[in-house]
């Protein structure tokens, strides 16, 4: 059997991350505004529309990066919960099912097929939010693997929708921390 995983305590708190995102967005907006001291030099010869277009491109990239980070935080939270329930040998039905998976896969359990699937089956009220999370993780995979294909996601995702869903999930599930 593999050794227990040591938790890093560097897992992302999405509320703190939201403040980081706000600062990044405001910084970018200031950088691209004529109030910035570097504006005249940086955008010499630009048409105003071109400045706006470049800023929108940067903001879109920021949104993708932040959505990826927030979804990674959600995955981390579910994985920490899975491991803690197994390490502490908790006795509720979900912990027992997760321990059966742990026997086979240890810290290599699959997020959707193993962990989220158990939650979906044994937690009342969870099926819709798990369905939404699984959809969002498809978007995460698309971001994480280079966005080189046209994804079939069924919905539009961006930082706002991903953050709201993630915060709702983390507030709703009784997840164990590190």
């Amino acid at each position, binding site marked *: 059997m593999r050794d227990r995983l040591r938790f890093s305590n560097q897992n992302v708190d*999405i*509320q703190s991350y*939201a*403040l980081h*995102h*706000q600062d990044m967005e405001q910084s970018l*907006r200031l950088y691209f*505004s004529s109030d910035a001291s570097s504006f005249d030099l940086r955008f010499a010869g630009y048409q105003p529309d071109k400045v*706006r277009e470049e800023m929108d491109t940067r903001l879109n990239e920021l949104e993708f990066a932040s959505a990826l980070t927030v979804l990674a935080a959600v995955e981390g939270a579910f994985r920490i919960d899975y491991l803690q329930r197994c390490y502490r040998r908790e006795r*509720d*039905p*979900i912990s027992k099912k997760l321990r059966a998976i742990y026997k086979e896969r240890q810290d290599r359990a699959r997020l959707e097929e193993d962990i989220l699937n158990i939650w979906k089956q*044994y*937690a*009342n*009220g*969870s*099926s*819709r*939010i798990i369905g*939404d999370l699984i*959809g*969002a993780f498809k978007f995460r995979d698309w971001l994480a693997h280079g966005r080189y294909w046209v994804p*079939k*996601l*069924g*919905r*539009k*995702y961006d*930082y*706002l*929708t991903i*953050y*709201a*869903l993630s*915060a*709702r999930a983390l*507030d*709703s*599930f*009784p997840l164990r921390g590190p």
Partner: protein
Amino acid sequence: MAKAKNTDFDEFVKRQQPRSEAERVDWNKRRDEWLGHLKQLYAEVEAFLKEYVDNGSIILERKKHRIIEENIGAYDSEIMIIRIGRQEIALRPVGTFLIGSRGRVDVEGSADRAKLVLVDKDATSMRSAIKIRILVPGEPHPPAEKAPKDIDWTWRIVTSPPEVAFKELNKESFFQILMAVSNAR
């Protein structure tokens, strides 16, 4: 060989069809409802700004805007442009297939962007927690999740993360948005 290929292709074509007439009609209905709510939002905005439009200090324009959504395909909507002197603010519809809302319009100014969402009139936040309980064996199985009630959809302003709280959309809050996205505060 050719026959087998055709069979595969036939299956492929079949899989791409809407599962039933009802399903297709639902998507069209969903699109039309969303566009109806959008029209209602624009009418509200026009009412908010009427005195300024009437005296010529604000100009409202519409621009054709194509939205592509997986379930519906491409359809036309409109961007509303609000011109206040040198400031230009665009109300840009995003779509209706979104998590946490029935539709969204982004309000884009020179300094910032705000978001209007079409949500349940009773909801207070996009992140409201739901009650999730671990099932215990032997306990009677709880009833299945309720189907969504007949929701009274309404437009709200949603604040940025981490709060993602809903604020009422009225003349005063809309004016505040216009000033915020134009960096006029």
